[in-house]
């Protein structure tokens, strides 16, 4: 199965999730009803003198339809209300909301500590290798060894790592863990887990309500308010128990949906890094470490399914029940000879060794470029969301080739803006003059100076480094505040429009940057799947392919008619001709991409395949074609590893 297959499966899992959720609501309604009945009976027992029982209900009738409906309605309201609220906050905050909820603090992209730097480098390498925007990293101040990835789309995804993992894992082990998390992003697990967290919140809320009732009783006793019905206390207690049942059911759902995905992510991590030892040793560290992968945080329960290892240890977290498969089994699937013995982890020895290593190996030499043969559309398609060690090597090479000064600029929110401006400035003298004038007016004068400063370095970048630079600036730009972001967005817009025409590169850059930042500053949230049939999307595909064909073959006489019709034939029967220029402007392209992103993964696969076919028709990918292809893959949220361009 490939990327699209996994995405599709994750989508189906969401349907399973909804079904389980409905069953859970029914079960909980019954349980709450039971709690109310028992509460009423016990209440009557305490207050025999009272005229009527609690709620005017007498214990003679065990089954009261009216009461049941009331109770169900109330439970339903609480659960749905709670879930709706959580889904709302999550879709506003994206992965950042989860990280912050868990007490994570954002690791500045410009952090200088050797261990912090090592972590940021590992994440950056992996992101560039897989064609994802570099995600912001959050640190959880926890001594357990754990990590997570959360977010609906690649642009609002964040990576969280515990302090314990940063200090106790070697670089290879850390890489294995991060690769595991990345594969959750590729497989659509992160998005599904976000939805799951939103839904399940309502279920666990019942236990909160129970706690609320119990504490209310206490305050009223202190105020000597004798009017509190002991029945309420009992109901509170019972609600709490019911709530706990809810929590257990929620965990069952998590287990049903996410447990298998952990094995999958482990396997993908091995494939990605081609280093089974990395992830296996990380798991062994967890096994031999006193703190294991435990997270001590009041919100850890809600988010337990996000983590790399078991975040919770509780009475029912035995192997067959937990959200994660047992460590021994996970290791055995990577290392079949594993005997199940964990060596005790000596915290001092490990952390000082890691610190020394991290300080020493800042410039790890990476081998030579690995030769690819990527001109085959099938091969490229197979790479989507499935980067191999070659891509990782390629990414290391890209990062190594990036001049140190540019890297420094990219990692700081202040200068990262200058790097983006510099990327947009034209090499043509006349254009450049106009653009610089516009920039001087719209941007901060100091940033303008920084832009002039970095401009020669950015211009000297070879073409293969330009788009990776766009990925690299992302975490730093996401550190801006809202007003700073708005100013930045305005300046970028002004810079692009300065010459009254939008070039393909300007368009690509703008689209990618703003889309990515939208995950942080705009509304994130899951992309709704609206289109299930290719037929409804044919006009959009026509726009896409027309532009691609014209970009690659515009100079030639046939104007790309052949690759266009061949690619189009892959999508639908019948004759389709290329669109006129006025029907296929960049604005049309933009709209088409937005709509195509709402297609099912299967349809996206077809579209991407057709696009690839259109591009490699003549056996090579030109720079412009490569850029356009990247924008398309990006617009469809399909992480495409760096391609070698001719």
């Amino acid at each position, binding site marked *: 199965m490939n990327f699209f297959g996994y995405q599709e499966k994750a989508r189906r899992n969401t349907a399973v999730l909804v079904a389980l959720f409905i069953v859970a609501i029914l079960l909980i309604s019954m349980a709450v009803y039971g709690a109310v009945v028992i509460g009423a009976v016990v209440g009557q027992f305490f207050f025999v003198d009272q005229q009527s029982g609690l709620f*005017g209900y007498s214990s003679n009738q065990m089954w009261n339809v009216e009461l049941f409906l009331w109770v169900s309605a109330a439970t339903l309201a609480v659960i749905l209300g709670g879930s709706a609220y959580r889904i709302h906050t999550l879709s506003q905050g994206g992965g950042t909301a989860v990280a912050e909820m868990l007490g994570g603090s*954002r690791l500045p992209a410009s952090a200088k500590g050797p261990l912090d730097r090592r972590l940021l480098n590992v994440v950056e390498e992996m992101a560039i290798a897989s064609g994802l925007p570099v995600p912001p990293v959050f640190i959880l101040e926890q001594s357990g060894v754990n990590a997570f990835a959360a977010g609906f789309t690649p642009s609002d995804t964040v990576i969280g790592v515990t302090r314990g993992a940063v200090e106790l894992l070697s670089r290879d082990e850390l890489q294995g863990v991060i690769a595991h998390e990345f594969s959750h992003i590729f497989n659509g697990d992160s998005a599904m887990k976000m939805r799951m967290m939103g839904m399940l919140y309502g279920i666990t809320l019942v236990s909160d309500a129970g706690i609320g009732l119990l504490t209310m009783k206490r305050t009223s006793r202190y105020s000597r308010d004798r009017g509190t019905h002991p029945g309420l206390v009992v109901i509170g207690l019972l609600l709490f128990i019911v709530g706990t049942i809810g929590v257990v059911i929620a965990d069952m759902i998590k287990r049903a949906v996410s447990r298998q995905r952990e094995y999958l992510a482990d396997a993908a991590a091995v494939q990605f890094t081609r280093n089974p030892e990395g992830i296996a040793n990380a798991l062994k560290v967890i096994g031999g470490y006193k703190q294991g992968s435990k997270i001590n945080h009041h919100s850890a329960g809600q988010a337990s399914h996000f983590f790399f290892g078991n975040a919770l240890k509780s009475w029912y977290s035995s192997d067959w029940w937990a959200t994660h498969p047992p460590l021994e089994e996970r290791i055995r699937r990577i290392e079949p000879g594993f005997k199940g013995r964990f060596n005790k982890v000596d915290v001092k020895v490990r952390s000082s060794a890691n610190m020394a290593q991290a300080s020493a190996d800042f410039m790890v030499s990476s081998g030579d470029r690995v030769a690819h043969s990527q001109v085959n559309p099938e091969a490229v398609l197979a790479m989507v969301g499935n980067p191999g060690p070659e891509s990782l090597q390629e990414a290391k090479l890209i990062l190594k080739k990036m001049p140190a000064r540019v890297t420094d600029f990219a990692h700081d929110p202040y200068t990262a803006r200058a790097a983006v401006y510099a990327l947009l400035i034209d090499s043509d003298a006349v254009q450049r003059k106009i653009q610089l004038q516009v920039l001087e007016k719209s941007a901060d004068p*100091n940033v303008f100076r*920084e832009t002039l400063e970095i401009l020669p370095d950015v211009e000297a970048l070879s073409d293969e480094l330009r788009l990776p630079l766009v990925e690299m600036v992302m975490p730093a730009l996401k550190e801006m*505040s809202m007003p*700073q972001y708005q100013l930045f967005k305005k300046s970028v817009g002004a810079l692009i429009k300065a010459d009254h025409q939008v070039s393909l590169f300007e368009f690509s850059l703008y689209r990618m940057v703003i889309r990515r930042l939208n995950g942080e500053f705009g509304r994130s949230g899951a992309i709704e799947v609206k289109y299930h049939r290719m037929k409804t999307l044919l006009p959009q595909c026509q726009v896409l392919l027309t532009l691609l064909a014209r970009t690659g073959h515009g100079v030639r006489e046939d104007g790309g008619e052949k690759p266009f019709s061949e690619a189009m034939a892959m999508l639908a029967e019948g004759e389709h001709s290329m669109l006129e220029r006025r029907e296929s402007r960049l604005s049309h392209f933009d709209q088409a991409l937005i709509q195509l992103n709402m297609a099912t993964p299967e349809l996206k696969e077809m579209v991407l395949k057709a696009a690839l076919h259109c591009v490699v028709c003549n056996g090579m990918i030109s720079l412009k074609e490569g850029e356009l292809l990247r924008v398309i893959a990006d617009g469809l949220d399909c992480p495409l590893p760096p391609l070698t361009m001719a």
Partner: protein
Amino acid sequence: MTALLVVLGVLVFLILYVIVIYNRLVKLKNRFKNAFAQIDVQLKRRYDLIPNLVETAKAYLKHEQDTLTHVIEARNQAMAAMKRASAHPDDAGAIKALAGAEGLLGGAMLNFNALQEAYPDLKADQTIAQLSEELTSTENKVSFARQAYNDEVMFYNTQRETFPDTLFTGMMGFKEAALFEVKNPEVKERVEVKF
């Protein structure tokens, strides 16, 4: 029975509403605390650069030991203030103390820079020029990060004072956060720095 149900319903609603308020404030608080991390990185960089600069300048400034000592002392004080502030970015007192210390450091640096005009040799030194340039750029980064932090603090403080949040903020322990505002060191020119 209906009355009880209504009371119960209102109660549940209230509890939920308070949870919403609480979560919203926690989120905003986390935001500005996270924004402080960026200031932290830049200030550290700045505090690392200053001793280098002073060390290099010493050779030229045999007779200006006072100014140099002031710079170093102000830097040490600011660094101590930063350590406290970065441990608790939500402590208004710590932020104000840091802002004060930063103001003093700015004044001391201004006096130091004035010396560059008086000693052309100093100004001509390659290392000094490079370090000064880097320091200026770092200061710009500091002020950018400070702006981001202040934006987030403002969002938090505004939400904190909005009705009905303001009814609960005291009870839940959401204190007002302080803006990180450094007085413009230009005003302090030629003012003797005292400790």
